[in-house]
């Protein structure tokens, strides 16, 4: 297994004066405090809001500042269009980039990071802000409307092993049992493991998470009871845990196709991305995601801790 915990992780106190500066700051817009407070506070030459259609904003609630909007419905088309528009700045040498993933759609965030890495941006910072609470506690639904497809995320489509007898699905289980069920159903025949966020973002969130995961127990089958844990706010431990899980499963029975589905916090999703890019890119491995038509724009309240993670691809690749 690989250990990713040597990578840098810092906590930024919202009450402090942030002195670090970046050339470009990219953030996915939604109306929560934890997204807007960080956007205002961060020091950057240029700041970009990514406006996601899935949040279904009306014009009135749009933020001021430089906004990127697109009619593209798929993550790859959306991010590639963003790259095309800001190619000059994004590919300038030694650019210092910071990305706030808190308000970003997971597939867009994953593809953006992969594309940055593939286009030679080798080192950048990622911000994730924890909420003080989710508005409907364990009943909080982040996705709205129906799941129209469970598919691989662009850029994370690995080769496919013709032998599917040892397929393995690892779900980073979040609050939405419906999404867990959709993913588990899609890979109905794979053995399944659940990765829960522990320690959770807040003390009560683990129980809430566990309750929702239990509701998807039937779809998860036997694997629903085999749970693994990684901190909800630490992508580096998450990547390390994934590495150990896959290694162990491979020992028990060779994994023919590996499917990863990060449905929990964005910080954990980042850990999935890190693990995938580092260890799985040439294997029969994919990241899959249940795509919904819309997402709730305001699901959390307040702001708790703000984390800054430094991704350094030349080191981890």
């Amino acid at each position, binding site marked *: 297994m690989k250990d990713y915990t040597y990578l840098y992780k810092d906590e930024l106190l919202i009450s402090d004066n942030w002195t670090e500066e970046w050339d470009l700051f990219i953030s996915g817009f939604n109306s929560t405090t934890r997204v807007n407070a960080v956007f205002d506070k961060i020091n950057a030459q240029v700041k970009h809001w990514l406006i996601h259609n899935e949040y279904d904003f009306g014009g009135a609630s749009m933020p001021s500042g430089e906004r990127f909007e697109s009619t593209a419905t*798929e993550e*790859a*088309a959306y991010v*590639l269009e963003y790259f095309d528009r800001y190619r000059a700045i994004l590919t300038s040498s030694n650019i210092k980039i910071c990305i706030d993933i808190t308000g970003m759609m997971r597939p867009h965030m994953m593809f953006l990071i992969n*594309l940055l890495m*593939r286009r030679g941006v080798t080192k950048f910072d990622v911000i994730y802000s924890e909420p003080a609470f989710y508005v409907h506690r364990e009943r909080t639904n982040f996705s709205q*409307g*129906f*799941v*129209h*497809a*469970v*598919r*691989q995320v*662009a*850029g994370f*489509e*690995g*080769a*496919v*092993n*013709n032998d*599917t007898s040892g*397929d393995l699905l690892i779900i980073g289980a979040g609050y939405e049992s*419906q999404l867990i*069920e*959709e993913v588990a159903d*899609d*890979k*109905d*025949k*794979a053995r399944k493991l659940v990765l829960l966020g522990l320690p959770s973002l807040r003390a009560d969130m683990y129980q809430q998470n566990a309750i929702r995961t239990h509701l998807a127990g*039937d*779809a998860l*089958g*036997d694997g629903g009871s085999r749970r693994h844990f990684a901190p909800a706010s630490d992508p580096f431990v998450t990547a390390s845990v994934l590495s150990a899980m896959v290694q162990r499963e491979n020992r028990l029975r060779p994994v023919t*196709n590996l499917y990863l589905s990060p449905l929990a916090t964005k910080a954990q999703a980042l850990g999935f991305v890190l693990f995938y890019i580092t260890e799985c890119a040439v294997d029969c491995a*994919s990241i*899959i995601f249940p795509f*919904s*038509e819309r997402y709730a724009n305001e699901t959390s309240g307040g702001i708790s801790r703000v984390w800054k993670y430094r991704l350094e691809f030349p080191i981890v690749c």
Partner: protein
Amino acid sequence: MEKPPSRHVNPFGITKAVDLNDDQIQSLWVNVSGNAEEFAEFARPASPMPTFILGAKGSGKTHLMRYHAFELQKLRYRQSGTEVRKGVARDGYVGIYMRCSGLNSGRFSGKRQSEDKWSAIFSYYIELWLTQHLLSATQELGIGGDAEESAQICAEILGLFDKPPVLPALTIGNLATEIRSMQRKLDYAVNNCVMTGSLDVEILITRGQLIFGIPKILSNRFEFLRDVMFVYSLDEFENLTIEQQKFVNTLVREKELPTTLRIGSRLYGIKTATTESAGEENLRDSEFETLPIDQLFRQHKTRYQQFAKSLIEKRLAAAYGVTDNAEERANLVNWSRFFETLNDEWNSGDLLGLVAGVPSKDRRHFVVASVKLSDLGLAKGQIDSIIKLLSAEKYPLLEKNNLLLLYQDMHRGKNAIESASEISKLCSSYIENGARRGRYWSNLDHYKTDLLAQLNKENDGKQQYLGIENFITMSAGLPRALLTILRSVYDWSQFRGESPFARDVISKEAQWRGVKDASDWFYENMRKAGQDGIAIQTAIERLARLFRINRFADKPTECSLIAFSFPEQDVSPQAMHILRLAESRSFLNRIPGGQRDKNSERVLMKFQLNNMLSPRWDLPLGRRGTYGFTAAEIDIIFDPTKAEEFEVFLLDWSARRTAPFFGKQKLPNSEDGAQQVLL
């Protein structure tokens, strides 16, 4: 049976075929073949006719398809000491099983490439994919071991390519490796075109050349394969897009002997019947057959009962270490001893127990009836007389029957006291001779389960869905549903400190709780996510509320009502859409043949609520009555936007079944007024 080895081992813990390994698939297999023609397909996987194996989630498609896969064939040969080639020759088929979900079919679209390009690439991909499975089976059949033979076969196969690849040496192993390499390159090109923006793939094979051509080569060359069918079993067809299904349909249409296809799909999984052959549609019974598993199970009840019991016996045998010998097992399994039951005969002590110690006049049904008669304006003395006439102290079920007969008479405008007097005589006569004829018996026979349900409800008793026969009926042709019921019942029984299938009978309480849990599981598990899922559940909830009101009404219009018919052509597209979704998700089961309308002679569509849902609303398992809805009523029930109209309809539905006015305008509360109409 002996006590199980561990308190925590639930013999029904695994309900999905996917969670079973090959050995378990083999050991838990129960043969359902028999004389009935419809079941023949179960036993003839070598049929050359392509077959769509259709069924709801949990109907047993995967178990069936995996059982006929080459991996399981080999296992059986090994167990019986049969040489593989001889076994295949005897079976008459080689099963090549694959899951469509393994293709990750979603990646063959979008990414700034044209649909035509994706269509060509997908068909090429499937060709490579299936060929790898085929070559793997070929090698396991011992073909290719001889170098000269291998070279000759390889040369023939390479001749099928439009542009043959170059192999380091002509062996089947090298060919398999090359095909795998071609697939990996294709994977890379498909997956990376999103980054590179281009998808330039050289397609080396015309559609079907390898997957139909290789079996021909093998069949012509080897005597033991002369009468053997190569069966491509594609499971999870629902995971393919419309365009991809069109391609598979084209393979079905163009298949060449000795090759055929079996396609497993959920009921809602067939998105199109069209092909790429000028857009023509495949015709059932011409290009393909269907095997609707759960529907066949529902139609052939006796066979399903036998199959289900064998299935359970196998589970118990595996868990309790009891012999796998069918005869010995049958001796050890005593169904009547496993489950606590209720004697629901009209004169049983169990029923009297429901009202134990309560005199007739104080029983809930008569207390409520007194109020209703009072509402009608009858004097207390008259009411007491009526209640006395309808009382049968030792037989509460007959008291319920008496009341129903009274309400039926009152609905027809008959004098209540005269009616009660006649009913009293009929009841006494029935108690005396128990004659199975006449109005009294007929009414009791028709409405018995509803009256029992009412008796249970009025006395805080739980509805009874007891015993293995009821569980099997409830599962409605879905073996996974049956296993889920038993899993829950077993868990509850253990929770209550019982030793299920061993020392103790499983209590009524454990059965009731297990059945309820399983019903809730079905309701939540079968639904589709999102807005359509909510619309289905809204419609089913409305339908169930209507049936429930009827079941517990003073005067149900239909007995054991869980079925309905309607004229399809007059129903709105929106309501029909939801109704079809509810059918495809198995919330509703279609009753083959429909129902002929008494007036117009038109054949109406007929459905029933899935039995698995009955306990959720305390509805019956058995279907007797059928309510004929109008098209407008179906619109109100199945169109999710018609919430207000439904509530109005519900009030009217309820009022028409409620004594003493049965939906007629309530008369002024005067004795004269009431008597004028009803006395």
